[in-house]
């Protein structure tokens, strides 16, 4: 297709397009460079990373760097902590959001429907910082500080997730299907699990990927509710390591790299869902 377009173009237009491509290619290297250098420095010695020109290819000091992190904390602990938060939160959020999105999409004539729908959309403009302090005090009052609960249970109620599932169910599930299900004796909740869920599975996957990645990257809320270093999730553990051991750059870089690997693997496997997830917010 692009070949056809190029074929119809004047030479001037072709030159312009090639120039744009080259410029974009160089710019894209700028976007990748920090991550690439992190990976390279993670395999180098302290002396090597302070040289000029800096090493641009991988070295062989990764085992020593790993040992240096292991002196500070078990290197896989933050990753396991992040998983312990992200996995249950994702399962809960996807379930709660899709159920509510389904209800809001199907039962438009139930009393109170309009109000609840408006409230759900309004939550999108709700700045999270408004609830930060009282949320902390609330967690303190019910004894949840320094546990993973504040990052999981309240977080499964996401206005973003509900709005997304509401639009997704509305655009993918034909209304006649509800009536057919009802005649087969499948009422509201049964119809959700046996009729709706199989249809909206791609949407559920997209929401799950999006939730996993954004939870992995959360910083402020874990910072507020987790006091104990052994509970730290990846971003918290890394920022702490980078302040206490900032002189050992290769070790910090290796720890950074380890924290990135899970999301990069997830992205490599499910990038299509991830992008669908980001786009969905902007449509309509």
């Amino acid at each position: 297709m692009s070949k056809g377009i190029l074929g119809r173009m004047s030479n001037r237009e072709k030159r312009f397009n090639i120039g744009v491509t080259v410029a974009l290619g160089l710019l894209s290297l700028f976007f990748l460079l920090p991550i690439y250098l992190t990976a390279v420095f993670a395999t180098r010695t302290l002396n090597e990373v302070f040289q000029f020109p800096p090493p641009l290819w991988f070295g062989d000091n990764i085992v020593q760097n790993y040992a240096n992190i292991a002196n500070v904390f078990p290197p896989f602990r933050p990753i396991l902590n992040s998983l312990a938060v992200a996995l249950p939160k994702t399962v809960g959020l996807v379930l709660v959001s899709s159920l509510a999105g389904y209800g809001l999409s199907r039962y438009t004539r139930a009393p109170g429907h309009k109000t609840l729908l408006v409230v759900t959309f309004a939550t999108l403009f709700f700045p999270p910082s408004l609830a930060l302090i009282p949320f902390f005090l609330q967690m303190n009052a019910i004894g949840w500080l320094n546990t993973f609960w504040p990052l999981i249970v309240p977080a499964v109620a996401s206005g973003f997730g509900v709005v997304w599932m509401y639009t997704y169910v509305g655009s993918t599930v034909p209304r006649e299907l509800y009536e057919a299900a009802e005649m087969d004796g499948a009422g509201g909740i049964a119809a959700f699990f046996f009729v709706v869920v199989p249809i909206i599975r791609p949407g559920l996957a997209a929401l799950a990927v999006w939730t996993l990645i954004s939870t992995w990257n959360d910083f402020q809320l874990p910072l507020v509710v987790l006091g104990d270093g052994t509970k730290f999730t990846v971003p918290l553990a890394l920022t702490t390591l980078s302040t206490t051991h900032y002189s050992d750059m290769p070790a910090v870089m290796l720890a950074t790299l380890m924290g990135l690997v899970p999301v990069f693997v997830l992205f490599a496997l499910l990038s299509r869902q991830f992008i669908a997830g980001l786009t969905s917010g902007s449509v309509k």
Partner: protein
Amino acid sequence: MVETVSRTPASQWRRNSAFYISVLPFFTIFLAFSVFPVVFSFYLGFSRWDGFGSPVFIGFQNYVRALHDPVFQKAVANTIYLWFWSTLLTISLALVLSVAINEYVAAGKTYFRMVFLVPLLVAPAIAAVVLRLFFSANGGLVNLLTGAMTGTPSYFDWLGSEVWIKPLVVLLVIWRWTGWYIIIFLAGLQSISRDIYEAARMDGVGRWAILSRITLPLLMPSIAFAVITATLGGLQMFDEPFVLTQGLGGTNNSATTVGMYLYATAFTQLNFGLGSAVSWYIFAAVVVLTLVYRSLMRRTKAGEGA
């Protein structure tokens, strides 16, 4: 509307209860952990409380006190600076890149669609850690580079510099968030029908005219969405400046944002009342700016119609 299924009171009741059951988990948790805290925060804003004993009602004192605090004033100025420049630069760059990817790229379209998204996988806090290492005074990559170019070793303290710390935060935001807006704009661009372009080309309309008369106006809803998202995030900016300055706000609070001020008053000084008042200032700013955008959008639309 044609109804094939019976509308007896019993089936109506069954349907309504299915609705309430389906939304119950969401609204219960939302009520308990979002609405309740926010109501409590409203009360706290008018109170003095350090978390011990019971809150004392003090009227508007917290709100007045914040306005008179030079650190808060500076935080407001910093936040406006960071919000304005990061929004402007990130969205402009994303706009240029997505139009280029959509229209002009000669090869490797799939690569360009994906590559700018990679930074989105990196937590803002982690990106800040990496940027710190590159810009550190002693042996940071940037100083090595400038040292090699000038011939004398450089030990410039970028992160301690009052001049440079804010541009560094903006740089971090650009690096990390441009991809997000590229996705939004690419989705918007793809929803514009190819026929319009074909017709314009046939009529001999030039590239710039196509861009300014067709593409940009049709992309306005996406741009508005992007600006509102960037504003919501920018006014509450926390992770990037916090990690970049190791939670201290930089020399003379040169990078302290309102979000960091809120965090410090509440969680280091345990002044929960003042912190809550600040969070209501943030909320007010979000509401005002959202309304301003909406009226601007409506005016441009009305202008087109006339």
